[in-house]
Structures are given as C-alpha cells and as structure tokens.
C-alpha cells in the first residue's frame, strides 16, 4: 500500500493509546507533575508544571526522577 496524503501519519494510523493511559498529572509536595507510570508501579517524572524557576533547581523535581 502506498499512501500519498497531506495528513499526518497519526491521522491514518492511530498511535498506541496505552501510552496515554500511562501518563497523568499528579500533585506531589504541592507541585503539579506530569508523570509516566512505570511497570514496577512507581512514577517517573516527565515534566514539572511550575512557573517558579527555583522549583526547577529543586533536586526532587529533576526530570527523570522516580517518585514513590
């Protein structure tokens, strides 16, 4: 099959929805974090949602940090 279309790949082949299910926003130590659930039940921090630049210097909220 050859596709010739201006549509995005995802519009034709829907991406795996299970990856959405793994990702969620949680509240941790009064900060909103965007996390991905790992197979062992812990969460890995994907993104810190904050406007305070000092939060980004906080060791606890560095990207990739594993929570709980």
């Amino acid at each position, binding site marked *: 099959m050859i596709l010739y279309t201006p549509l995005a790949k995802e519009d034709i082949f829907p991406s795996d929805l299970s990856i959405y299910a793994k990702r969620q926003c949680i509240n941790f130590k009064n900060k909103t974090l965007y996390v991905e659930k790992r197979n062992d039940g812990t969460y890995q921090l994907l993104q810190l949602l904050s*406007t305070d*630049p000092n939060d980004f210097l906080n060791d606890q909220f*560095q990207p990739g940090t594993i929570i709980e």
Partner: protein
Amino acid sequence: MDKYKKEPTYQNKEQEEQTEPDQNNASSLVEKIQQLGQTNVVQAPDTNVHVLSIVGQVEGHIQLPPQNKTTKYEHILPQLIAIEQNPKIEGLVVLLNTVGGDVEAGLALSEMIASMSKPTVSIVLGGGHSIGVPIAVSTNYSFIVPTATMTIHPIRLTGMVIGVPQTFEYLEKMQERVIQFVVGHSNIKEELFKELMFAKGNLTRDIGTNVVGTDAVNYGLIDGVGGVKDAMVKVNELINLAKENETGAIQ
C-alpha cells in the same frame, strides 16, 4: 524501588530512609547522573520573577499523539491566575520556542498574558511560529534572540470539515482576530502584517514569511533583539516602574 514494595507501610519507609541514608543517596546520585549528567544543581533564594515556558506545540481542544512535545493550555491558564494573585510574584518572563498549534488555545493564552496587571516580558528563542506570534507580542515588552525566527502565515485547518462555506467564513474571522490581536499589541502596521502573511515566494510552495530576529524588530513586530540578560533587566525595570506608580498613587 523494589525495597518499597517489600515494606509497604509508611513507618517502615521512614525507618528505612533513616537507617539506610547512604544507599538512598547513592541510588539518587546514580539517577541524577543518568538524567542530568551531573550530580548537583545550583540552589538559589526565592525569586520575584516567575518563568513560563511555552514549548513545542500549543495543545488545545485535541490531544496530540504522545511523541509530540506540547504545552497544554489547561496547564498554563491556572498558572497565570496563580501568578496574578500571588503578591510575592512581581513579574513574569515568557520563554517561547513553539511551532504554533491550536489557534483558540494560543489566543486564550495571549489574552490572558495581555490582561495581566504584573509586568510581563517575552523572549522568542529558536522559533515562535504561527500562533507563537500573538503570544510573543502579548507581553508588555518582547525580545527575540538574533537567531530565532517567526513564521507568519494564514490559518490552516486539518481534519474533516463539515459545511465548507461556513467553516471558511469562520476561519476567516478567526484569522482576522489573530491579525487584530497582533496589530493591537505590537508596533507593526496592519497592512504590513497582512503583506507578510500573504507574501509569495518566501516559503517554498506556500504563502507567508519567515521573519528572522532583527527583521522582526525592524518590522515593529517585536520590541527588541536580546536574550536572557536584556529580558531580566527589562522586567526589573518594569517592576520598579510599577512600584513607583503604586506609591505615587497612594501619596
């Protein structure tokens, strides 16, 4: 992380942290090296200027596939309210590196930033394309780094369209709103902005213009060429000005 599973109660967890601090430190150290390539991050005192980064695509009504890097407007809007309400925060710097995205989400962000009482400054880094343009000009003062570009082009729509003439009219009105916002919040003339938006020959097989750093300033779209230092100087200047006005009003 497996050790937490074996000892699920909270007390045990605390105990473990107390009794095995070296082990915890060691694992967090390894984690840090893996993620950041370094062991410690600088610490600083409280800041009166907050930072809002709008990166990747501006995500609005439709959730984008997970491989897209997006800024979700539902995350940003409450943060803007929080900044407006917090008396300790005196100014806001908006960092922009966006390819554009949902028009209504972008306009919502722009209007929110434009209607804030606190001094706001934006820096366009890398790119501030399409709907990034109104967001960039929505602040009190806007900066662009010399290497950044901004693509100005007509509004597009992907996906299925029901009722073509109606949708066309709706899109045209939406485009007019974007133009009015940009003209109203920057020094660019409406004719010039429209000319850039519908220019032929600048983009390969497309209409529009890709405006580079200094040109954006020359057109009056952005207020100045500059980076972090200039933005911080400007935001502090605006904060001081706001303070002066406040004390003047009281007296």
